[in-house]
């Protein structure tokens, strides 16, 4: 049988979840009786279980992940892969600028990012075939092509399932909200879902949903309520035993810990940042969300996913890019510098991610349409190379030219960096084993 992943006791994985309660209450022998849908072993499954034992790097390079998702499909030409030498209808309306890395150019709205190009890896050969928003989003959040038969969990939920929480904080947090179902739990239980902060840190009224005590309830009264609840709960707890009840208890314990931990609550408190730092990141959605993400990973959150902007630029890409990119540029460059100065960049993997790129040719409305054959993403920290460009697209940005990076290889590499064996199989409720990543290879060229 596979080794259980290193969980905190109150964050068991789904399968253990069924047992833990029983083990604790009526003894180990009972747990195996009539258990629901046990293991449907296949030869393939048996093969992976062997590899699981050796898996899970003891000391992962990336302790945390910040996934910056740019919904809509950011054009690769107007960001990390300008087509300098192509005819104007391919090159588009923006100029290219030099970066800190010799011979590497970015699009003109990435001025600040150009200055930290020596700290990051840019992938110019990301590729999949999904040209619809939801299918592209699914691919980039889950590492799988969409399937008619099964809902795959997001990478954040896999991290939550495999690694569990740290420092009284949820393992997987979304800023500001869950924007797509593919950031969800898929076939894993909702216990592995993200905690959404529920509010934009760039707004004045920012407050994290349900984290602070309601008006009129001070910590003393909350403590009183908590005590009273345990009195009210005692009768039932003594009578009834079930995994569902244990599950609720464990999440109440986590909620109590989070509410009463100054450190945990402070992680969400963006106002605790010095004014200058908040200004440096930019007083806008991009800046404040990235700053909050940095606070959260610094405090121990394992996987933070944030969204910024709307990048579905079918029309007038020059104007659209010009309104969104500068804020992203400033925030992202500041985030990378900030993490680096704090010594956190090596242990924090920062991903700039989108569902697909955009058509090589400018269309009739001065924009670009969906293009999944090749596009760009950026990876920084967490063991990735610094100042490196991985792969390339062809002269018109239409196809990968060198080292195409598939969704599976991308996901396998990310999981590997956080210490999760991408080849491990997880049993779905229907008894069909699913690999965390199917047919993915760790791309060594990306790693420092």
């Amino acid at each position, binding site marked *: 049988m596979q080794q259980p992943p290193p969980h905190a006791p109150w964050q068991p994985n789904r399968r253990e979840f069924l047992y833990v309660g029983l083990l604790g209450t009526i003894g180990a022998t009972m747990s195996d009786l009539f*258990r629901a849908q046990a293991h449907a072993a296949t*030869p*393939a499954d048996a093969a992976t279980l062997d590899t699981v034992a050796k898996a899970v790097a003891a000391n992962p390079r990336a302790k945390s992940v910040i996934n910056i998702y740019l919904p809509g499909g950011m054009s690769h030409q107007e960001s990390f892969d300008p087509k300098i030498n192509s005819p104007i209808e391919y090159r588009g309306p923006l100029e290219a600028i030099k970066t800190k890395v010799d011979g590497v150019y970015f699009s003109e709205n990435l001025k600040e990012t150009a200055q930290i190009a020596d700290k990051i890896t840019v992938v110019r050969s990301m590729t999949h075939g999904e040209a619809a928003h939801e299918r592209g989003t699914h691919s980039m959040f889950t590492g799988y092509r969409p399937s008619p038969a099964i809902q795959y969990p997001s990478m954040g939920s896999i991290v939550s399932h495999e690694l569990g929480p740290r420092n009284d904080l949820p393992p997987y947090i979304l800023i500001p909200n869950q924007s797509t179902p593919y950031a969800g739990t898929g076939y894993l239980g909702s216990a592995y879902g993200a905690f959404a902060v529920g509010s934009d840190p760039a707004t004045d009224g920012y407050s994290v949903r349900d984290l602070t005590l309601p008006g009129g309830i001070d910590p003393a009264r909350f403590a009183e309520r908590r005590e009273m609840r345990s009195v009210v709960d005692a009768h039932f707890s003594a009578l009834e035993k079930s995994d569902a009840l244990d599950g*609720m208890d464990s*999440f109440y314990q986590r909620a109590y810990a989070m509410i009463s931990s100054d450190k945990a609550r402070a992680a969400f408190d963006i106002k605790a940042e010095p004014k200058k730092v908040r200004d440096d990141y930019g007083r806008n959605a991009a800046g404040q969300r990235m700053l909050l993400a940095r606070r959260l990973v610094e405090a121990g959150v394992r996987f933070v996913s944030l969204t910024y902007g709307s990048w579905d630029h079918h029309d007038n890409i020059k104007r659209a890019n010009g309104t969104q990119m500068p804020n992203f540029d400033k925030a992202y460059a500041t985030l990378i510098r900030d993490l680096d100065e704090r010594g956190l960049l090596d242990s924090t993997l920062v991903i700039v991610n989108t569902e697909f790129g955009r058509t090589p040719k400018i269309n009739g409305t001065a924009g670009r349409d969906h293009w999944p054959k090749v596009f760009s993403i950026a990876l920084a920290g967490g063991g990735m190379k610094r100042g490196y460009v991985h792969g390339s697209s062809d002269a018109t940005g239409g196809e990968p030219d060198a080292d195409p990076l598939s969704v599976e290889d991308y996901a396998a590499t990310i999981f590997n960096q956080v210490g999760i064996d991408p080849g491990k199989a997880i049993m779905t409720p229907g008894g069909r084993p699913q690999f965390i990543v199917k047919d993915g290879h760790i791309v060594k060229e990306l790693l420092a």
Partner: protein
Amino acid sequence: MKAFLAVVAHHFARSRVRLCGAGFTPAICSLLLPLSLLLCLSALNAHAAKPALTEVRVYPADINLRTSGDRQSVIVQATYADGLTRDVTAESSFALANKKLANLAVTATGSTLTPLVDGTTELRVKFSGKSLVVPVKVEAAKTAEPISFIRDVMPVFTKAGCNTGGCHGSSRGKDGFRLSLFGYDPDGDYYRLTRESITRRINLALPEESLVLEKATNRVPHTGGKLFTPESEHYRTILAWLQAGAPKDKANVPQVVRLEVHPKQSVLAGEGTTQQLNARAFYSDGSDRDVTTLTVFMTNNDVAVKVSETGKLTALARGEAFITARFETQATGVQALSIPKDLNFTWPASVAEANYIDTHVNAKLRKLRLAPSAVCDDATFLRRATLDITGTLPTPEAVRAFLADSSPQKRETAVDALLSRREFVDVWVMKWAELLQIRSADQQEQMSTKSALQYFDWLEDQITQNVPVDVMVKNLVTASGPTFENPAANFYKVERDTLKLAENAAQALMGVRIQCAQCHNHPFDRWTMNDYYGFAAFFSQVGRKPGEDPRETIITNSASGGVKHPVGGKDVAPKFLGGPAPELAKGADRRAALADWLTAPDNPFFARNLANLVWSHFLGRGIVDPVDDVRVSNPALNPELLDALAARLVSSRYDFKQLVRDICTSRTYQLSSAPNDSNAGDDRNFSHAAVRRIRAEVLLDAITAVTGAAEKLKGLPDGARAVEIADGRTSTYFLTTFGRATRETPCSCEVKMEPNLSQALHLLNGDTVNAKVLNGGLVKKLQKAGRTRAEIIDELYVRTLSRPPTEKETTALAAFFGESKKEDVVLNDLFWSLLNAKEFVFNH
């Protein structure tokens, strides 16, 4: 008397040995021997009080050997009066009436016959005084059957695991070589093996050096390791095919039409006890074949019963397992129970049976040696039944009246009263709205809010009128015309994709998930791609035209169009799932044929699915669970119970109320959730009640009701409950967090019941509980009405938990009321605590 005999026999047997050892002549010893053996046998029976042998069965029941390479293994299973079974193949004697016709040998899979000479004879099997006769037919004993790629070689790939998803069956293959997943594309597999990379994978000049064999035996490095040895049957099969020149099968090679696996049930006592299975495939040309060594066996509970490569079951820990057997496109299953040896178990005398439900549940429990729990107390029953039947909590008045009622029939009376309430209908309208995915789309032109509301109103009307569900479903499936005039036609507006429509219909109306078979034959079930596209073809001629109003669609029978099979690219003719292909006139509405088949009383899925849905709602777990995932590898845990419930639905013309009444008045429904010594480990056989979290809508409505603070839901009139939400897109943070169905799919998994952090935080700090306690002002009102502190505490308990506080609780709570504290503040804190208590959030 028996015991006495046993003692005598033992004594005698022992003394015989001593006598012989003391120098008696062998002649005397041999004289004594038969008598002592006889006595010993009866002694053994008597000593262990061994239950009588009730039945001996031989599998298969007939033997057909055709062509020289054929063989058939035979197994013998004995059943005893206590329900236990034993594999007695090794203890049985086998004899052929005409020994010339076949050879008889003991192999790993039983006693095995191989052909010698053509003719017919019989195999005589004897065990413990019982004898059975198996007819044997030998044909073409001297003729070798030519080796076939599909019949012989492909099953080896499947058996050895070569074509699984983790290996070469992956859509991109593995290490440069691809096979179709579980062999759904034989022509493609033949091509890839013999032609795709000529001279690489097979070597017809030196067959033993073919890469396919060298890899499988790991003579050259193979990521998948060593799958079989050169001595194995699998190796010999592939080698024989290569030696024959790797021939391609002629067209019309016989297809497997049925797979039989025996015995269907094994009840094994004691860890390590084994039972060999026997698998036989039947082909379209009328022939059969022993495929025990080529069948893939999988257990769904390897802690209870494991199964070997060659189909031998071994009992492990106590429990129940289903063994799925798969050969080519066919899959079937058998059940195996593992019971501790010499378990001291007596069925409690106090268990009464209220109706047929208890009979079937208890029959299964007896087999498992599990005793049902005691019946729950009155307060628990009323809370449970009120929540389940009406989706509301009992009022304090109802609780007090019920507890004070001394009538022995009060539970039945209460169930009848609850069934007559409007809220009962609301619950089932909600459940059907989930199955039918009633929800407006993000793009209003696809499904407008108006259309969603019309659809919901139509549904509500059908359920309120108690229209029999078969009629309602027939109206849905055959619905045509403008959706504004016939809102049932929205069935075809909610989903426009032919394949998705078919998948959703199968899942919602039959409880079957066929999605897997869109891309490959289902690995854990019997559905093939042919089944999938044949079923989808029923939905391939639905026409959609815009109506006058842009929000309206006119649904028609377009009488043309089809679905293409991805392998071969040909149109597939409509074929019922697991049933025949109907004769359809050109242009006839395919949906009408489907609706007739689906709602026929003998349809194997329809009534069972509905019965299971109802059962699952009340017992917290389906007889098939999840309810919409009936599979060979996920069968009904109590098929007799499911059949009886389905029959009840059919015979009552789908009157839900009658079925619900049967369920709620059964002893099984009324069991306490507290387990006893025997059933503590069971959560699947309804031996005690399940503790279930209350679903999102009902929980929000309950908080609203007990606090008296209204919840304003978007698009609904004041005072409307969350259960009544018409449009699946309407939600609140509370409902979403507690796992309300989005209705984006018909999946039962849409309703989420798992706890999570956001739920805990929201109940503790969020604006639902805290604000409603304050806004409802219940404590203040009660204080104003002059109620004492004790009375108010009592009222809060009865309102939320449907029971008065215990003495222990009253005492413990008194400590919170200090002199310096305001009484209403403490009482509100108590109210808050009760709403945060597990006993409130769970139905038990």
